[in-house]
């Protein structure tokens, strides 16, 4: 079980790295997807290995993972729509340049 | 064939005294109408090919093959026909021409029905052509578009009726015309024209008299000086020949006018606001032949 958790941690760390270092908004979105997947691996692992007393049908983790997948899809859709809008208005999707929300 | 014809007409008009024999006139009409059918068949095939349907292409070429056989037995050529001469036609038709031609005409209407079954009612075909590339009558006249493309816009103008040449006034046929001027109407006009042409050929074959096929015209005949313009209706619109003569054996200037040039010119107006795929459809429906543009 610990291997799976470690794998998820590594994947999550890589995702963080991507989010912090990418300039390209699409690159950040991709890194976010990696982090979602890391969380999902954890959920499914817990579902497999950890027993919750009192629940016979032990699939809560998978159900949550499905929700996460759906939300990730929704997030990607909206995120990419925003990216396209940014591209149209700023002629680029470099997040370092897009700073009107700072003030 | 129609280039032969229009030049012969112009030369005869210029000379003024050439009497074309009756049988030759009938043969000319037969050949011209068969040629119109063959040309429309090519148009039908390439149009369907441009829209992505491959089968009708081969159907069109199958019937065209029969017409080419008829031409071959008449003048020996399958592509660059040279049959109509000043003062008549090059030679009489072989004996088996008439039965062969009757056989072809007998089955041709059913074949056209076939084409219509494949395309006319096909929802995809209709969707691709209806209300695409609308050519208004004003625009068509302004750009000098002629022939089926003009008639699809609702202008019922056909030189065979409006400025009869040869013996077209003796035949009973209709000039199909529509009013929307979109690709679909241009398609329908040509399909119906094929039927009408077949009708003309049928009448001509029934009534063709015996006799000479060529008036005596000296090889060295010198027409009087002057200029002349004659025009006929061919499959792509008005075909005109302009000859300027200075009374020599050779003319000073000859200019042939084809229909494609004007139809190409109107393209930019038609394709505005359409998709690339529609450009293909519009180009196909106008029946533009590039070599003819370059006349």
């Amino acid at each position, binding site marked *: 079980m610990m291997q799976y958790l470690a794998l998820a941690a590594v994947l999550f760390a890589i995702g963080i790295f991507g989010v912090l270092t990418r300039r390209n908004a699409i690159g950040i979105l991709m890194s976010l997807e990696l982090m979602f997947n890391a969380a999902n691996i954890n959920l499914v692992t817990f579902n497999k290995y950890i027993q919750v007393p009192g629940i016979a049908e032990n699939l809560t983790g998978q159900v949550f993972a499905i929700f996460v997948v759906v939300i990730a899809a929704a997030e990607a859709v909206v995120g990419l729509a925003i990216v396209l809008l940014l591209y149209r208005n700023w002629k680029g999707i470099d997040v370092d340049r897009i700073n009107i929300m700072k003030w | 064939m129609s280039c032969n014809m229009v030049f012969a007409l112009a030369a005869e008009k210029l000379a003024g005294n050439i009497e074309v024999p009756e049988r030759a006139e009938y043969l000319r009409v037969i050949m011209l109408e068969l040629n119109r059918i063959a040309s429309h068949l090519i148009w039908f095939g390439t149009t*369907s*090919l*441009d*829209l*992505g*349907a*491959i*089968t009708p292409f*081969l*159907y069109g070429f*199958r019937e065209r093959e029969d017409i080419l056989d008829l031409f071959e037995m008449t003048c020996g050529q399958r592509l660059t026909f040279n049959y109509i001469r000043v003062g008549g036609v090059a030679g009489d038709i072989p004996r088996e021409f008439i039965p062969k031609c009757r056989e072809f005409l007998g089955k041709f209407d059913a074949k056209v029905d076939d084409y219509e079954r*494949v*395309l006319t009612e*096909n929802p*995809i*075909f209709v*969707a*691709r052509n209806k209300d695409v590339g609308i050519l208004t009558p004003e625009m068509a006249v302004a750009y000098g578009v002629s022939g089926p493309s003009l008639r699809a816009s609702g202008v019922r103008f056909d030189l065979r009726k409006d400025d009869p040449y040869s013996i077209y006034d003796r035949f009973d046929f209709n000039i199909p015309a529509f009013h929307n001027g979109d690709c679909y109407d241009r398609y329908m006009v040509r399909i119906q024209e094929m039927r009408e042409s077949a009708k003309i050929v049928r009448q001509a074959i029934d009534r063709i008299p015996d006799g000479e096929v060529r008036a005596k015209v000296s090889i060295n005949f010198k027409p009087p000086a002057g200029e002349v313009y004659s025009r006929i209706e061919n499959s792509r619109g008005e075909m005109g020949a302009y000859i300027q003569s200075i009374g020599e054996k050779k003319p000073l200037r000859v200019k042939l006018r084809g229909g494609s040039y004007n139809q190409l010119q109107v393209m930019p107006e038609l394709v505005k606001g359409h*998709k*690339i*795929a*529609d450009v*293909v459809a519009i180009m196909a429906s106008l029946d533009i032949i590039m070599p003819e543009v370059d006349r």
Partner: protein
Amino acid sequence: MEITGIFKYLYELLQSTGLPQVLVDIIALASAAVMIFGVLAVIALFLVWWERKVSAHIQQRFGPMRTGWHGWRQTIADAVKLLQKEDITPSTVDRPVFFWAPVIAFVAAFMVYVTIPFGDGLIVSDLNIGILFIIAITTFTIISLLMAGWGSNNKYALLGGMRSAAQVVSYEVPMVVSVLAVIVFAGSLSMVDIVQSQAKIYKWYFFRLPFGPIAFFTYIIAATAETNRTPFDLPEAEQELVAGFNVEYSGMKFAMFFLAEFVNMFTVSAIGATLFFGGWQGPLLPSWVWFLVKTFALVFVLMWFRWTYPRLRVDQLMEFSWKFLLPVSFANLILAGWMKYSGWFNW
């Protein structure tokens, strides 16, 4: 003449050699993979030949006639020629992407056959997610198209790739929804279970009126679009895009795309036969013969479409999917669920 027994015998023979069970399973799976590959390669070659013959006869000509009986050797000669051709890689392409695109298309096309039952017991692995597995794997086809389009570094290839990706994504939705209608009735995702639930001809899902035929027709239309065939062959519309996403490919790589295309055509027909026409079920003849007969009948329908219809325009294509096919298939899914719930045709 069932051939399942032969495989069982071979498997037992392998076990009796005393190898460890893991190794036995691996060998069995590997040989199954090789066998399926061989069968599919033959089927694909046959389909190429058959497509020529069908198109020729629809167009009132003969097609290949010279080499062998009705030109049966022609396709083999063509395939050999294609494999011998020089494999050109243009200098401006994105090399790794250009290389992997046909490989992915090829592998995805063949991986689907893990869960397709060729006959009673003739299945590599009866996964409990059967049909979902197939649908998931086929999405890799889109990736390969996009990779080919992008990697070629050619505007026609890029346009073709984007067009076909947009098209396949759009048509996947109605396809999956129409398949779901059958799954609702079968109550299982496993292909074997679905086939076994249609043991008699009146139990075939195609005959479960009214939802069966609707589901089938939406499926077959969406499947035609999924395989990029006329009237939905926009990705390779010669008149607009030269040849679409594979314009830069030649030789071996082109052969892989080509083969994958025909295998995909067989796949969608096989799924159609399995879901709607009882798969291998049928009297007298062995099960795999029934399966092949039904599948080839559906393949013929696809070819018939191709050689009859003109091509749609891009916007009409999308409109057809989203505004017509999708609502119809969703309504059909609700209808199927309601029928199941109220017990109609619940034999």
